[in-house]
């Protein structure tokens, strides 16, 4: 067995797989359950007030294990989530990353104040493409930097900035976040997309557009991670289309230190983390690598 352990900003992950924000992560009990196999678990993105999310349909299944979603950030709100975090912390078997979201810089700060120090790290969802205004935080280096630096003043734990692909140049935004004090980057969020049911001629999602995730997103994620790795020194949680151990290896070779997974966990349930970290282990063994950490950034060597 290869050494799967990863050091992510001082946190020890038992393997590089991380539950991505927004999937399965809204109750303390589920976070605990997934922490059995995942190297780290990210909570749903928590806003200041409870949100019902968008009306259904909020999801479109695409061929080839890809999804379109416009959940609309349903979450119980920071206040109600205190209790869930308490449950999660009592017995979680891997670090908990608290995803915070806001509809203004100020709201990000308030959410971070309330729950940002109760997990092991914070992730700032600067790039949700499915709610009005939230995508813009990661479309401007200045705004992204402002959120990061203000939250950094409050939170004692490592802070990750989560970026999306729908920008002119993602590495510019990552650099701005690094300069503003971010301890890491999570890349990427979903890509804005839309699907129409041709039988009825209707847009499927109530929100009209949604975010593309899963296999279709992976080559885009790999490119973003590769670009970011070339331009920053802080670690990257690579996320996008990881459905197998070899997919995880690809994102790590591109520059990821750990690997987030959303769609895989949707397709397969909590079992995905166990399977994929096993597959990664087998891959490392077959290719003669001693540890998962060796993979990070390998494709940059000429």
């Amino acid at each position: 067995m290869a050494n799967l352990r990863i050091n992510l900003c001082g946190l020890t992950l038992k393997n590089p797989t991380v539950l991505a924000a927004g999937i399965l992560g809204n109750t303390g009990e589920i976070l605990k359950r997934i922490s059995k196999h995942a190297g780290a678990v990210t909570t749903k993105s928590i806003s200041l007030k409870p949100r019902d999310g968008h009306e259904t349909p909020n999801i479109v299944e695409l061929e080839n294990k890809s999804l379109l979603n416009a959940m609309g950030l349903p979450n119980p709100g920071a206040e109600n989530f205190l209790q869930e975090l308490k449950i999660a912390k009592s017995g979680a078997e891997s670090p908990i990353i608290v995803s915070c979201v806001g509809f203004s810089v100020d709201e990000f700060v308030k959410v971070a104040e309330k729950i940002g120090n109760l997990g092991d790290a914070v992730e700032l969802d600067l790039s949700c493409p499915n709610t009005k205004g939230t995508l813009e935080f990661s479309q401007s280096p200045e705004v992204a930097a402002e959120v990061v630096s203000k939250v950094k003043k409050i939170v004692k734990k490592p802070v990750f900035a989560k970026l999306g692909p729908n920008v002119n140049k993602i590495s510019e935004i990552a650099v701005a976040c690094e300069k503003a004090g971010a301890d890491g980057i999570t890349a990427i969020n979903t890509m804005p997309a839309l699907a129409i049911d041709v039988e009825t001629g209707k847009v499927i999602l109530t929100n009209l557009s949604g975010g593309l995730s899963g296999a279709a997103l992976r080559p885009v994620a790999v490119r973003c991670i590769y670009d970011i790795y070339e331009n920053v020194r802080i670690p990257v949680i690579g996320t996008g289309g990881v459905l197998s151990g070899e997919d995880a290896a690809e994102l790590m070779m591109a520059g990821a230190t750990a690997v987030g997974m959303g769609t895989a966990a949707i397709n397969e349930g909590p079992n995905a983390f166990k399977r994929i970290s096993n597959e990664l282990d087998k891959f490392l063994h077959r290719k003669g690598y001693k540890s998962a950490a060796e993979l990070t950034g390998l494709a940059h060597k000429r």
Partner: protein
Amino acid sequence: MTIQRSFELVDIVKETPKVSTFFFKFNKIAEPGQFLMVWVPGSEEVPMSVAYSDKKSIAISVAAIGPASNSLHAKKIGDYIGLRGPFGKPFTLKIGTKRIALVAGGYGAAPLGLFAERIKSSHKEVQIDSFLGARTREDLLFVKRLEKVSTVYISTNDGSTGHKGLVIEPFEQELKKKKFDCVYTCGPEMMEKAIFDICAKNNLDLQASLERIMKCGFGICGSCMMDDLILCIDGPVVEMRELKRLKEFGVSHRDKAGVLQYWKK
């Protein structure tokens, strides 16, 4: 490609004043207890148990009670309706089973009806007692369907037919006379809770199909979480062993935001 979303509505059968069964051209086979996410284009998407399923078609039996269900009742044959799934864990029969009880409230008769039919086609030896309850005679669902494959016990709240009172009462009665290897229930949570209490007391095996708000069907939205179960994946059918340790069963559920809410008793 978008995995085919909408399917042709090929037949509608009125079952009771409130409930109709909708048949669709559909080529995936569902197990009894599994559900579909059903979307009426232009309206919402909600979960519905599978009432019939074969290689070519699938059906759901829907009670018209609110926006989503009413919008489906407004549809005609030839219209296209969005279907995703089937999702979730079905009812299962353990090896060596000789006699089972089905306890249904309302549209719970749909998945249990399908389950009884499937058992009879592959395990003829199994004895089935079905307990059906409704408010009044005309609301009873799938009486004839279940009579073909099981012994049926009927209860109505108003006594318009069968036993007057709750479905639980004839069930308790039969329990004294027969040995059920397993009890299967689908209906309002308080009814299911009562059945659970009886089964727990009598040391009977049980499978209950639980209902929660389900906005996605496969682990995203968070509304169907129940303790550490994700009901759309780990359920909707939950076994006795799990039911016993669930703190939220019969007590609380989550709203659309995922906030814990307590059932009004």
